[in-house]
């Protein structure tokens, strides 16, 4: 959607480039003029830098959040849930059903057996590290195959949990945000003491917000006899349709099969409020910046009436004057845009969190300032330059030569 916005930029920029290449007023003239009025130039550029920085930072927030979900799924894996459950937290899957699915010949096998993991997904309340209350954090019980199936996840310290013991492996990212998640510490919940035996890193995916343990431990401690869901791997992404059809046809199972990627893509809904806020802020601030740029450019034009007259007397045409001043506005705003994008880079990687409204649990993610976003920020500043510079440039090109020479 962002890219669509810049389509009108292309012809305008093409025209300007053509105007600059075709002799015309040298760009160094604009550059020097900007330097001449450096206080005005710098303050306007700074204001634009602030606007662009806010734009990039807010978008990097929603980018970071979508990244958490988009990088979670694998295209050759499918998630089996209770029909209508929509999320694992709400789903349940009986042991018999799990056995039937595991016996399906379409599943991929590795040295230890079928790549299928019956899992139990619940939430627990943990105290925040900064003492500001508690939050719901996801606890996922997995079978050993489940750990092997998440290729994003890498153990960085300690070891994996042992099946049959209340042991937790936690994301390194959460360790700083919640109490008691350091290696070797124990936590008490669900009537059991859980020992943290390892920390992992999941490349910013949704698993970076989950505590992992043995599935039977979760079920016993909750006195549950049903799993939440089952994750299965198939030989190729296009085999999922056939597998889904077989699942739907089996009268013993009343389940819903979803591609793992689709399942997580749906959860990016969690980023909607931030995106909405980001768009609101961007539209409003862009308007404000356009007005400010216009102001500066008008003043630049007004202060240079005699110069413009001279240029015209030298033989430069109106169109060329228009292009020249438009270029000056673009330089002014582009300068601000680049500065703003660089400023935003300072936020890259900062950890933050929000709630996934579908599971009411904490999602931790990082500001993700990508080169694409920075380019979008600069493009926005160019848009500001075009919009804010056109009217003043138009005015400059319309000043009658005689009048200009008189002043």
């Amino acid at each position, binding site marked *: 959607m962002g890219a669509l916005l810049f389509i009108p930029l292309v012809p305008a920029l093409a025209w300007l480039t053509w105007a600059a290449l075709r002799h015309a007023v040298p760009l160094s003239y604009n550059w020097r003029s900007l330097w001449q009025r450096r206080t005005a130039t710098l303050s306007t550029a700074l204001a634009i830098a602030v606007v662009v920085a806010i734009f990039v930072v807010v978008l990097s927030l929603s980018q970071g959040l979508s990244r958490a979900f988009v990088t979670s799924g694998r295209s050759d894996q499918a998630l089996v849930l209770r029909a209508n459950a929509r999320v694992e937290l709400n789903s349940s899957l009986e042991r018999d059903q799990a056995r039937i699915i595991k016996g399906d010949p379409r599943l991929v096998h590795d040295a230890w057996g079928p790549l299928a993991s019956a899992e139990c997904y619940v939430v627990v309340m943990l105290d925040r590290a900064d003492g500001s209350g508690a939050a*719901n954090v996801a606890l996922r019980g997995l079978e050993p195959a489940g750990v092997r199936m998440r290729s994003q996840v890498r153990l960085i310290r300690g070891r994996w949990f042992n099946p049959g013991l209340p042991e937790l492996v936690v994301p390194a990212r959460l360790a700083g945000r919640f109490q008691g998640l350091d290696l070797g510490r124990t936590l008490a919940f669900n009537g059991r003491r859980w020992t943290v035996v390892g920390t992992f890193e999941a490349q910013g995916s949704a698993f970076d917000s989950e505590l992992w343990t043995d599935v039977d431990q979760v079920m016993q401690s909750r006195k549950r006899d049903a799993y939440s869901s089952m994750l299965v791997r198939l030989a190729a992404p296009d085999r999922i349709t056939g597998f889904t059809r077989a699942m739907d046809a089996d009268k013993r199972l009343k389940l819903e099969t979803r591609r793992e990627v689709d399942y997580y893509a749906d959860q990016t809904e969690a980023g909607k409020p931030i995106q*909405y806020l980001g768009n609101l802020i961007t539209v409003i601030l862009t308007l404000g910046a356009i007005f400010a740029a216009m*102001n500066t450019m008008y*003043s630049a034009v007004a202060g240079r009436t005699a110069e413009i007259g001279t240029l015209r007397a030298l033989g430069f045409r109106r169109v060329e004057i228009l292009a020249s001043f438009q270029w000056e506005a673009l330089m002014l705003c582009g300068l601000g845009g680049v500065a703003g994008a660089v400023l935003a880079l300072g936020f890259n990687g900062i950890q933050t969190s929000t709630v996934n409204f579908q599971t*009411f649990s904490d999602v931790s993610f990082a500001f993700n300032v990508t080169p694409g976003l920075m380019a979008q920020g600069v493009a926005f500043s160019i848009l500001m330059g075009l919009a804010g510079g056109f009217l003043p440039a138009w005015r400059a090109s319309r000043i009658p030569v005689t009048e200009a020479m008189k002043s």
Partner: protein
Amino acid sequence: MRFLHLILRSLLRSRRRTLLTILSLAVSVFLVAVLQGILGTLDGFAHNPDASSRVAVRHKTSLANLLPLRYEDWIRQQPEVDAVIAMQWFGGVYQDPRNFFANFAVEPEFLTRIFKEEIGTYSESGFRTFVKDRNACVVGQALADKYGWKVGTVVPLKGTIFPINPRLTVRGIYHSKRNADEMALYFHYKLLEEGVPRMKGKVGAFWVRVRNPNDVPRLIERIDHQYRDALEPTLSETENAFQLEFLKMLGDYATMIHTITAAVLFAILIVTASTMAMTVRERTTEIAVLRAMGFRGGQVLGLLMAEGVLLAALGGLLGVGLATLAAGFLRHSAGSLIPWLSDFTLPADTLLFCLHATVAVGVLSTFLPAYQAIRRPIVEGLRAL
């Protein structure tokens, strides 16, 4: 005041510049007002005076764990307690998952007593029918309006958390002060308990109304102490604390909003300062003339400052005015994304803050250029004449 005319004249000297500066200020102030309004609205939910006598009791481990229904009897016997009901977030979907609204399974008898403030006005007979009819529900006016429900309409809900799909007849429609309170549906807990085996004798939370708000801390402590060593320990807190926890999970939106506010104010400060610098530079001669006529430096400074402050204040007023006008629109658009925002309002505090901030911007931005102007020797200024 004698010089008001002069100040206005100076502002109108370059109309386009004044207008552009005011517009630039106005949109920025508009943004600040809206962002601070969002913050204020969210905070309002965690500091709701109507909820001061209500306590939420739930499982200590998480909201998704269930408490035995029998706890209710013990809680009801406590001397401070006025009424208590069992409540379960049902999370049902109406037609499409995007149609999000709160729906709860509750014990109907004391519903209106617990939520006296929220379920404000309603038809007595409608609610009596609701209590008797197990397949009935009551809904808020705003929710009924949104989907065109009337008394007698059958509302099919699809369970997401629970594997049942109840078809509920609307028996009562209530009005409340806040829109968010009207975006809710309540139906019989019994329907849920009978339809879902694992819910037998279990519930997600109890909502307790205490006779005297001062007794709340004592009651909270007593309940949690009573069930401390139970298999299912409880966590009791005021409804406001409960709400705050949810809001906190939204993320550190407060810091984000404050940072953006500060950045925007900084940006308009430089924009205004730049405008005022331009104005002052253009008027070097004029200022010298004024001083040659006998105006003292302080007076000229005052005139220029007044001009800057007036400029900023005009921008601020326009921005605040726009924000007030846009509040209604925001309630609709943002409210569908974040339910809390369907009660978006701009508190007087926020508006005052914005005006103060803009006046401060006016003062700060004008001082330096104006001070420089009056420090310049008169002769130098007159030379340009």
